[in-house]
């Protein structure tokens, strides 16, 4: 059985580094398998585009748009384990 090799990049940017309204590409879904599974079940895959919609103050949850019609939210802590790359333009 072959496993997908994680995408290794030089950037160590995570979702928490993104500003409201910013678009980014998911590089990986983190190493915690429970977070990984949950994101998969919402239909997120590495390579997908997301954008930040709202951020609750004091490091509260971040709500995110995925694809054209899907929305989800996650805690700051979980968001900090997910690496992304900003989409230019």
């Amino acid at each position, binding site marked *: 059985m072959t496993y997908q090799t994680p995408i290794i990049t030089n950037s160590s940017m995570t979702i928490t580094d993104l500003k409201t309204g910013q678009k980014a590409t998911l590089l990986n879904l983190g190493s*915690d398998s429970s*977070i990984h*599974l*949950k994101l998969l079940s*919402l*239909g997120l895959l590495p390579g997908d585009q997301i954008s930040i919609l709202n951020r609750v103050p004091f490091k*509260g949850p971040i709500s995110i748009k995925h694809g054209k019609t899907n929305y989800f939210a996650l*805690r700051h802590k*979980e968001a900090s384990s997910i690496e992304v790359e900003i989409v230019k333009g």
Partner: protein
Amino acid sequence: MNTEVIEDQAKSLNAAPSERSKVLLVGFPNAGKSTLFNLLTGGNRKISNYSGITVDSAIGDFSSNQDSGQRRVELVDLPGIYNLNPTSQDEGVTLNSLVNMSSGPEGDLILAVIDWHRLEASLTLVVSLIDLFGPHKVLCVINKDDEKELTIEERLNLEEQLGTKILPISAISTDQSVIDHFIREQLAIKKTLNKDVDPRKKILTISSQALSYVPHLTSYDGHIQIHVAADDNEVTHLINQKHQQVRNILNHVKGPDLQPSQLSEKIDKITLHPLFGLPIFLGIFYFIFHSIYTWAGPVMDLSEELVAKLGEVIGQTLPPGMLHDLLVDGIIGGVGGVVVFLPQIMILFFLLSLLEQSGYISRAAIITDRIMSFFGLGGKAFLPYMSGFACAIPGIMAARTIPDHKERMATILTLPLITCSARLPVYILLIGTFVPDYTVMGIFNSRALSFFFLYFLGSFMALIIAKVLRLSFFKGPTGNFIIDLPHYQRPHFRIALKQSWFKGKTFLKKAGTVILGLSILIWLLSTFPTPSESKLENMTEAQQASYTLEYSALGRMGKTIEPIIKPLGMDWKIGVGLLVSFGARELFVSAMGTIYSLGEVDEESETLREKLKTEVDSEGKLVFDLATAWSILIFFVFSLQCTSTLAILKKETGGWKYPILGFSYMLVLAYVGSFLTFNLLS
């Protein structure tokens, strides 16, 4: 297969109507399984627009089974799952039912419910189901396709690629008979396919963590081989593959219109606003309490008058005697005192249903998550707490969605502190009687604010105790919080009215059975034993009534505990009310109704509120003042006076240890809280 064959099959089915088939509803949380269940069976499963409402399975007969010659089909509603690797106890229930369903041409059928707005992710689950059980065991309905956006070409293309039949529906507009027919047709087809069944054993790979939620499957030996993955990567990799597969299948499907999601996005800009989010959240809940008072007020006054009038009419018609007293004091005084709260209960559940259907609850979970996580609870604890506002029992059951055992225990043990609807009659009675009605800061109503405060106090204490538990008995990491945000939708008044009517019926049923029975018992205990005639000589009528009550079994019980509750500002009559309220909270109101009817000497009809206001002790001092009223209120905020909650705690934790622990700590809180309140206010 052509339609003639299907019709033939249908005929042969009609020939043997005694056979029975089971159809399992499987799909994502909040995909509309329970809506479909209610539609097809006429059942009354709770429906809302957020995940995790269904945590146990339910079985119901198809309504059409009653039609002559129809085969008997049963529908099983199961908790929502995302994939075949369960991550909590409720998801385990679903996997267990799936693996153990009967196979073969006569066996069960899976009805996969897909949310049109989450088509891609949900189809991954369908693909997994098809891989494991074969295409003929799985049927698909695509729910929430309200605007018929899936074209016929797209549907046919999907059917061909998946190998199963697909029916796009809208739970709002699609006729029940269409779905009914769709299912019966597939049952008929499946019966002819006994030779097509793939004889090879299929493998289901789950993680070792997942296996802990389906313990029965360790010894399972059936048509599926359970394989426990060496590490979690193996499982995530397999699920990832399925997602890729579905993306390829969906290449030609345009997908849902963007407009509703854009609207949702705009609403979220306001409801999740960094500054306004929290005030909006508080405002919505204040509005609910406000409406309970302002809207239900006139209706309640009317029903109170009616109950009082009824007592007066019966009191004048019947000759004096035991029957007269039982009816007027025991039943009308006791049950009538509780029944008048029906309008409030119905308004509360009507508004909560509108809110739940709208999709706001998930946003409320986000707004409050900072607070929840501070107290050591994950986002998944919010929804059980939310259910707890209706009743602790569904809340405690909803805690099954919390994966971590310790976090689940901390949630379950603090849930009874959340203000449930059984406290409502006590709150309304005391606040409505003793808190003066005035406007605070120009817009708020003093009574609605008192109400809001009591709800807030209960929830706040629940969180504090949860934190204490999370730092001691149930120490451990907080589970993660990743939540799907459904699109906002316009709530349906019809569903809200149905929910509200259903809750009202349940409330009346409880009043007519448990409360009625216990009210009669309270009356008996407060009437017997009777003092001898000689004792009552030379007493005024009022003195006689009060002496008889003190002499009764209940009076003696009250007198016995009086020294204990005296520091709380309560006399023995209130003590009696507290004692009986440990059976069910509403009994406090019913006991007060009975006791004050007994003490009543004139025949004039008075409402319970008027009686409480004017009650004086032996020295002529008012028994109830603001301090006593608040002392009682605080006692009710904290104490666990509900036998049904104790029973469900025992069931969910597997022993008496936790129910006893919960009961004790809440009793201590109630006593100390009341003591402090009374002494601060008087």
